[in-house]
């Protein structure tokens, strides 16, 4: 493990890595602060830029965006009461109150400092969990990978979003789109409709930019609400150390909640942030200040959402199952560079994993530095005119899509998936599940067929091997759980009506 870190440090401390990470963190802060651009969208927009990069550098840069976006999202939460990212939603409550009282600098400073502490802690948690878990996962063969893919899809379909059926449909649509192209086993074309452009299949990056970024732009144009801008002057006085030290309980709570949410598929830190906010209030010596501008009320959710940046990497790196939109973009970047996430990642390409560990540590420090420098310029970013912002992002998306393989095909894919994604959002489908289906489709199909090849066609192979059987059982429980809950609620409703 020590050699791993030496190797990782060598990669992460290269000038190119540092520059790309700095760029990533800066773009993350800007992206997070741009209303409507979440961390995952900011990351997806950068995917076309990573084509020529070393995979280790590409992942470090994207992790930098993820980390930076967490702070960027809090800037809008505090200054205009609009969370720039879902993870910053709980910060709005007390952050905006502080801003109204003229204590904007203190609110932003607490967000930045507790976020950095949370982020750095999470890197250690990541290392502590991921390395042993990856050893455990070494026993994985094709049946286990198949079961894992199914389990991951079941988790995302059923826990993200409220509607299991629509989640399952979304996941299936992703899997279906992923089958277009050349069959991985026999090399025969499938569902290409005679189009040579489709022989290589639908580019995951294009689908992801469409489903995440373009759909969000369409959503904002079609269902736009009023936009608040910052008025008046406010103080940029930073919090003092004494004030930060007082926040330690809130930070511990945020760390625990962020760790739990990172390990489970969730809403990009939003749930952990809200739970930590409530818990911090319960444990606080001054619960009455919550909701009226409490620094603890900013510290708890801000620690939590930054802790998620590290812990969300645990299921991604060890099993190849992303738990959030941002982790899904990381997975796409890995596949783009032919890096297979999962246990073998640690064995075959330790420089990527350990580079990411060291890189995330550095990126958190960069966020701290850039965060302080950007305290004033951030306000200009937050107040950018929405028509300009939306148009700029659309133009970036279109040119970025073209750049994927220097042809128009991906531009159309991005537009089509963007339109589809907007429709899916509007009618309650699960965009993340579709992205996951698209990303995991190849892995699921190949391992299904490989397993049956090994077992000479005997489907029991998935149930006689313990790990695969347990994973499939979990998948089944995951899918049945919402149905059982619904039945119970129905019965309760009937009983209530009868009584």
């Amino acid at each position, binding site marked *: 493990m020590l050699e791993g870190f030496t190797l990782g440090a060598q990669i992460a401390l290269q000038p190119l890595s540092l520059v790309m990470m700095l760029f990533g963190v800066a773009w993350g802060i800007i992206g997070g602060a741009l209303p409507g651009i979440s961390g995952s969208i900011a990351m997806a927009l950068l995917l076309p830029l990573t084509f020529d990069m070393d995979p280790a550098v590409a992942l470090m840069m994207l992790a930098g965006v993820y980390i930076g976006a967490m702070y960027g999202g809090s800037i809008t939460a505090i200054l205009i009461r609009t969370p720039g990212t879902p993870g910053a939603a709980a910060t709005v409550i007390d952050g905006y109150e502080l801003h109204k009282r003229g204590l904007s600098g203190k609110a932003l400073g607490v967000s930045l400092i507790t976020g950095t502490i949370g982020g750095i802690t999470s890197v250690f948690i990541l290392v502590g969990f991921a390395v042993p878990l990856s050893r455990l996962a070494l026993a994985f063969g094709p049946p286990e990978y198949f079961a894992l893919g199914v389990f991951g899809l079941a988790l995302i379909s059923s826990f993200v979003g409220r509607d299991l059926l629509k989640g399952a*449909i979304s996941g299936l649509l992703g899997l279906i789109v992923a*089958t277009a192209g050349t069959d991985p086993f*026999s*090399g025969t074309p499938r569902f290409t409709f005679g189009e040579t452009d489709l022989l290589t299949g639908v580019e995951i990056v294009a689908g992801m930019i469409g489903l995440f970024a373009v759909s969000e732009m369409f959503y904002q144009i079609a*269902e736009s609400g009023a936009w608040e801008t910052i008025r008046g002057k406010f103080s940029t006085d930073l919090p003092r150390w004494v004030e930060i030290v007082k926040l330690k309980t809130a930070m511990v709570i945020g760390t625990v909640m962020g760790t739990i949410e990172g390990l489970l598929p969730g809403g990009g830190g939003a749930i952990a942030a809200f739970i930590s906010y409530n818990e911090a209030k319960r444990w606080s010596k001054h619960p009455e200040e919550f909701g009226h501008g409490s620094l603890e009320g900013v510290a708890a959710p801000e620690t939590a959402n930054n802790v998620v940046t590290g812990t969300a990497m645990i299921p991604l790196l060890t099993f190849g199952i992303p738990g959030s939109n941002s982790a899904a973009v990381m997975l796409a970047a890995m596949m783009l560079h032919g890096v297979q996430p999962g246990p073998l990642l640690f064995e075959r390409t330790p420089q990527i994993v350990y580079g990411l560990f060291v890189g995330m540590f550095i990126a958190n420090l960069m966020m701290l530095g850039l965060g302080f420098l950007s305290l004033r310029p951030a306000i200009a970013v937050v107040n950018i005119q929405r028509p*300009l912002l939306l148009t700029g992002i*659309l*133009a970036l998306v279109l040119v970025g899509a073209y750049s994927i393989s220097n042809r128009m095909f991906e531009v159309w894919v991005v*537009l089509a998936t963007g339109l589809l994604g907007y429709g899916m959002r509007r009618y309650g489908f699960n965009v993340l599940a579709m992205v996951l289906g698209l990303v995991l489709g190849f892995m699921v199909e190949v391992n*299904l067929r490989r397993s049956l090849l090994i077992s000479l066609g005997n489907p029991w192979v998935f149930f006689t091997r313990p790990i695969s059987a347990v994973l499939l059982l979990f998948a089944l429980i995951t899918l049945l759980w919402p149905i059982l809950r619904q039945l119970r609620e129905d019965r309760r409703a009937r009983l209530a009506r009868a009584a």
Partner: protein
Amino acid sequence: MRRADLLIGVGLLVIAILYYQQTFAITVGFASDRLGPAFFPRLLALALGACAVALSWRSIRGRSDPGPLPPVQARLFLATLGLTVAYALLLHPLGYLLATPLYVVAVVGVLGYRRPGGLAVAAVGITGVLYLVFVRALKVLVPMGPLGR
């Protein structure tokens, strides 16, 4: 919402059937595995079909959540979409350096920003920044149209 779900369910069922039908168009090579390239797609088609039926059935029985959908700014949305499609179609004939500023001015204008100075800055700025990043730094071969010749 319920009617929409029914329509979506029926639409998805049609997609599942068409997709299933398309699996028969796959020519199986002799080098394939036991399951062949059509097996997994058929499995997916059946699953999607089942889910589509379940969705339609649920909406007929009125079990999905009601609640009206928020209103849509249809004109704004369709105008932006139309302009974006037009941009994609005109990128080759006009070239990047002509099509992009036109697109930016049109969309920014449609979305409600009309200050001439700002429009000009946005058109030149967005086109220029993307040009520097993609064409100069990343060496992407964007179509240059008449200007490139």
